[in-house]
C-alpha cells in the first residue's frame, strides 16, 4: 500500500518536450485515471511511473521513496498492458507464476497466490491453457491476475480495455472498479475513452499536449471544466461552443448570428466588452417558445437513441452538412420528434453557462 507523488515531471525526446511538468499527489488506495487524446503523453507518464521510460526532469515517489533510478521490478508495481503482453509460450498458470518465481517465493506460496487470484477472477479452469486458447476477455483477466498475484502497492493500467468489444468493455470496466475497491490498491489508469475515465476514476487527470489541464473528481470536471479543451473532451455529446461579445454591462453576450444569451449571475470579471467563448452542454439547452428563445437553431440532423433524441442544428442557414462537428447539439427527451429543416428555438438553462477566455481557453470566473 502506498501513495504516489509525481513532482513536476518532464519528458523530452531529444529537443522535443512531450510532458511539460506534471505534478499530482495520489493518495493510498486512490483510483486515478489519466485521460487525453492520442499523443498527449498519457502513456508516457504511466510508463515513467512504471520505470519503462527514463525521467527527464522531476521526481516520482512511490510510498515515500523516490524511484527515479529504481528498476521497474523494484518499484513494487504491476502493470496491465493494452495488448495484455501475456507470455505466449507459457500456460496461464505459468504466466501468473513467472514473477513470483523470480521473487524466489516457495512453491506452495506461489500456488496459493495464483489460486486465490484465479478464484477472484474466475479463471481457475483455464490455468493450464495457453493464452492463444483464450478469448479477449479471458486474456484480459489473466493479465489482471498476473498483476494481482504480485500484491503490488500500485497498479498501472495502460488502456487495458481498448482491445475488447464495446459490450465486454462495459463489463470489464465494472469488474476492474470492483476489484480495485476490494483490493484497495492505488491505481493509475490510462485511457482515451472519456466514459471509462468518468466511471472509473476517483480523480481524473485530463492531459492535453503534455500539460495537465485539470486534476479533479469526474463530477467537478464535468460541472466546472477548467478550460475549453476539458469542456469539449469530457462529456458526450461534446459541449457546444459559440464565440460572442460580452456586452459592456456584463449582462448578456451577443453571438455571431445576432442572438443574445443572458449571462445572469455568472462572474465575468474584467471581460466586459470583450470577445468570449461560450460553452453549453447539450442537456443544458432547452427548447422553448420563440419569444423566450436565446438562440434559434435550424435543425440539420436528428439522432434518435430511444432514451434520448439529439438534434443537431446551426444558428444560420449557410452551414454545410460536412460541418457537422461544429453543429450545436440539443439533448431532447426520447419521445421528442424534431424534424430536419425545422427551426428550434432554445435557451440556456440556469447554471448551464460556461465561459472561456478566447485566447488562452481558460475558464472565466468560478
Amino acid at each position: 500500500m502506498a501513495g504516489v507523488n509525481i513532482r513536476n515531471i518532464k519528458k523530452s525526446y531529444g529537443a522535443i518536450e512531450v510532458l511539460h511538468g506534471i505534478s499530482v499527489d495520489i493518495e493510498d488506495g486512490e483510483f486515478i485515471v489519466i485521460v487525453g487524446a492520442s499523443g498527449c503523453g498519457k502513456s508516457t507518464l504511466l510508463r515513467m511511473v512504471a520505470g519503462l521510460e527514463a525521467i527527464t526532469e522531476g521526481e516520482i515517489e512511490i510510498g515515500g521513496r523516490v524511484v527515479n533510478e529504481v528498476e521497474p521490478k523494484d518499484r513494487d508495481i504491476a502493470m496491465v498492458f493494452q495488448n495484455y503482453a501475456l507470455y505466449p509460450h507459457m500456460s496461464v498458470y505459468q504466466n501468473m507464476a513467472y514473477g513470483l518465481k523470480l521473487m524466489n517465493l516457495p512453491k506452495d506460496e506461489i500456488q496459493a497466490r495464483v489460486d486465490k487470484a484465479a478464484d477472484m477472477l474466475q479463471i481457475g479452469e483455464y490455468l493450464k491453457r495457453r493464452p492463444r486458447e483464450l478469448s479477449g476477455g479471458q486474456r484480459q483477466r489473466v493479465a489482471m491476475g498476473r498483476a494481482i498475484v504480485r500484491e503490488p502497492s500500485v497498479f498501472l493500467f495502460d488502456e487495458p480495455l481498448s482491445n475488447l468489444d464495446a459490450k465486454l468493455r462495459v463489463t470489464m470496466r465494472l469488474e476492474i472498479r470492483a476489484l480495485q475497491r476490494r483490493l484497495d490498491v492505488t491505481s493509475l489508469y490510462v485511457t482515451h475513452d472519456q466514459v471509462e475515465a468518468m466511471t472509473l476514476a476517483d480523480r481524473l487527470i485530463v492531459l492535453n499536449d503534455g500539460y495537465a489541464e485539470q486534476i479533479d473528481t469526474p463530477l467537478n470536471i464535468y460541472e466546472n471544466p477548467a478550460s475549453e479543451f476539458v469542456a469539449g473532451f469530457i462529456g458526450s455529446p461534446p459541449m457546444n461552443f459559440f464565440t460572442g461579445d460580452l456586452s459592456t454591462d456584463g449582462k448578456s453576450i451577443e453571438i455571431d448570428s445576432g442572438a443574445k444569451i443572458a449571462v445572469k449571475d455568472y462572474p465575468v470579471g474584467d471581460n466586459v466588452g470583450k470577445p468570449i467563448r461560450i460553452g453549453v452542454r447539450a442537456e443544458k439547452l432547452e427548447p422553448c417558445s420563440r419569444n423566450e428563445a436565446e438562440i434559434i437553431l435550424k435543425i440539420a440532423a436528428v439522432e434518435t437513441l430511444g432514451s434520448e433524441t439529439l438534434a443537431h442544428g446551426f444558428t444560420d442557414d449557410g452551414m454545410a452538412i460536412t460541418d457537422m462537428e461544429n453543429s450545436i447539439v440539443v439533448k431532447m427527451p426520447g419521445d421528442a420528434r424534431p424534424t430536419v429543416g425545422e427551426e428550434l428555438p432554445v435557451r440556456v438553462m440556469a447554471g448551464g453557462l460556461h465561459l472561456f477566455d478566447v485566447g488562452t481557453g481558460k475558464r472565466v470566473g468560478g
Partner: protein
Amino acid sequence: MLKRVHFNTSWLPFALVAPQIFITVVFFLWPAGQAIFQSFLLEDAFGLSTEFVWFDNFKELWADDAYTDSFSRTAFFSLMVAFLSLSIALVLAGMADRIVKFATTYRTLLIWPYAVAPVLAGALFVFMFDPTLGLVAYALDIFGYDWNHKLNGGEAMALVIMAATWKQISYNFLFFLAAMQSIPKSLLEAAAIDGAGPARRFWTIIFPLITPTTFFLLVVNIVYAFFDTFGIISAVTDGGPAGATNILVYKVYSDGFIGLDLGGSAAQSVVLMAIVIVITIIQFRYIEKKVDY
C-alpha cells in the same frame, strides 16, 4: 480466401512456368537421373567400356573405411558449423536487438560476410592462417603455438570450420534479429516488471519465442554445411591433409573427377541426395507442426 485468377487461354500459364520447368529439368532432374543411372554402372578408367553392376557401387562404399570415416567427419563438421554459427549469430543478434545508437550500421556490417562467395571466404582464411605468410599464424607463433594446418589434420578441420562458420553467421544473424524484433516490446517490458533481468528475459522469453526460427536455421545450416561448403574445402585444404577435411561433398568431386571412379562417385552423390530429401521432409514436417504464437 484467396481470389483465384483465371486465364482465358489455357496455354498462357504453361508458357509462364515453362522457363522455370526447363531450368529444373535441365539442371536438376536430368543430372539427378544421370547420377542415379551412373551409380549402377562400372566404368573402366579410360571410359571405353561400361558394365551394369546393380548395387555393387553402394556395397563397396559401405565397405570402404575412407567413406565411413568421411561420413562421421562430415557429421562432426556440419554439427560444429551449425552449432557455432547459430550460437555466435544468436549472441550478436541479441546484442544488436538491444542497441539503439548506430543500430543500422552494426546490422549492415554484420550482414556483409554473407555477400562473400564461399571460395573467397576460404581464400581469406588461407591467407590469414598460412603457416609461413599468415598474420594469424604469426600471431599464434608469438604465443608459442606452432600453427600448421597443412600438416595437422585437427588444425585443418578447425580452419575449415572457422571459415564455414564465419560465412554463415550473417545469414543466421539476419533471421535471428528479425525474429527477435517481431516479439512485442510489451512482453519484455512485462518481464522486466516481473523482475527478470536482461539475461533472464533472453532465456525465458526471447529464446523460447524464437524456437521456430532456430529450428528452421538449424536445418538450413546443416544443409549448408553438408553441401555448400565445397568451395571452402577446395580453397583451404583440398580435403587434406591426408583426407582430414575430406567431407562427403568434396569426396564426390575428388573420387569422381580426380580419382575417375565415376560409378562410385555417382553412388556417393545418390546417398547425399537421399540425405537432403530426408532433411527436407523433417523440416517440412516440423515447421508445419510448429505453432506460431
